[in-house]
């Protein structure tokens, strides 16, 4: 547990040293979501109906875009290699790193999602559904994405490859996250979706760290 905190802290310190890059995923998220109204007929009801899905897709894309940088800096200055070689609890260390990364991407854009909801005229009770859906879903996105990031760290142009590997795997989370919203809009129960998203998060929290550590061990040698 100590390792996890240590790496979480380390990542945080490193991230806050450079606030400019820290908020890039957030800005990307906002811009992507705000592109949709321009490409659609200007009807309030339409935006209201599809707004939740648009915000989910933007969150997925913003998370995916931020993945490439997750291990990149540590790989380039050689720290990652040292970690892989020396660390006995590599999976825990990587989990700390990934969770810290999530606070700067998933958590941050979840916090700003209500703002976007207002521009889409989404009613306030639905804003809460979206907010908690993103809160449960984005850590899973980051954890699964980290596997792809770990597999492609050593590649010079890994960004496109990450997208091809990871996006198909994101579909279940997207289905349940956005499905929760449309279900709630129809006045139906959303407990089962919350449970499913929670189960996926637990599964990702337990399995992904080992996959990430394994992937790093294979690619960095």
């Amino acid at each position, binding site marked *: 547990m100590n390792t996890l905190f240590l790496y979480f802290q380390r990542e945080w310190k490193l991230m806050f040293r450079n606030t400019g890059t820290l908020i890039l995923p957030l800005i990307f998220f906002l811009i992507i979501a705000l592109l949709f109204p321009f490409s659609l007929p200007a009807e309030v009801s339409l935006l209201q109906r599809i707004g939740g899905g648009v915000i989910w897709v933007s969150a997925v894309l913003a998370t995916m875009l931020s993945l490439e940088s997750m291990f990149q800096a540590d790989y380039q200055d050689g720290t990652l290699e040292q970690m892989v070689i020396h660390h006995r609890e590599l999976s825990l260390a990587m989990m700390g790193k990934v969770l810290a990364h999530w606070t700067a991407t998933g958590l941050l854009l979840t916090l700003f999602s209500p703002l976007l909801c207002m521009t889409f005229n989404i009613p306030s009770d639905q804003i809460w559904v979206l907010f908690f859906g993103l809160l449960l879903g984005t850590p899973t996105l980051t954890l699964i994405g980290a596997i792809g990031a770990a597999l492609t760290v050593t590649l010079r142009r890994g960004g496109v490859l990450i997208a091809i590997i990871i996006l198909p795997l994101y579909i*279940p989370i997207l289905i349940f996250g956005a*499905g929760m919203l449309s*279900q709630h809009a129809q006045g139906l129960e959303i407990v089962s979706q919350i449970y*499913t998203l929670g189960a996926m998060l637990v599964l990702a929290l337990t399995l992904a760290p080992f996959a990430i550590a394994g992937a790093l061990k294979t690619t960095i040698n």
Partner: protein
Amino acid sequence: MNPFSIIWKFLDRTYHRLASPREFYTIAQYATPIFGFLSLILIISGAYLGLFEAPADYQQGDSFRIIYVHVPAAWLSLFVYMVMATASAIGLIWRMKMAFVVAICSAPLGAVFTALALITGSIWGKPIWGTWWTWDARLTSELILLFIYFGVMATYYAFEERKTAEKAMAMLSIVGVVIVPIIHYSVEWWTSLHQGQTIFAEGGPRMPADMLTPLILMIFGFMFFYGYALFLAAQNKVLTQERKARWVRELIQKTGNQR
């Protein structure tokens, strides 16, 4: 000696033989014509029975004959993935070189079967449901499977060093095994929410024997074909990978002299 230990010994020996590229190549050389022959016989007889002998469906008429290529392709798309993932796991756990060869040679074949299942499915869908594509659970998860195959192949070809490429590909295909069922069920849940399963109602009567026999023949024909194509591709892969080995040189010289 009890029978189990004999079987175990046999498996153990075959396993070790398969682990060596040279033995693997020899076995593949012998197995290839057998698999090819069996698949040819099965597919020809299946096609004959399916196209000529099987009666037309009372609901779908003759269009149901697409089933004899569609279902085998769909079946194989999953079967090949399971083979690929199992081979990947064997390769990662026991560091068996040839398992990776099987895995990476399976990926494009699986992608072809998946694409075939999608294309024939949509050709079949046009006259029966009146549309080329619907966002049905099975269609959607098959499409995602195709993208996962692409991802696995892209990962393999992105790395310059072969060993890293093999391991990275193997890891991804194992991650896919965990996620493919989740994708399937989530997509099923998603479609059952949004649209009724009216088009895909399956409650029809069970297939009579004269319709079922050709289907089974075709499925086995496709499976043997997969074995055949896999061995062909694997031979090529082994030859390129082991091109510096002495046995490959001797083999090439031998075939060269025969000519």
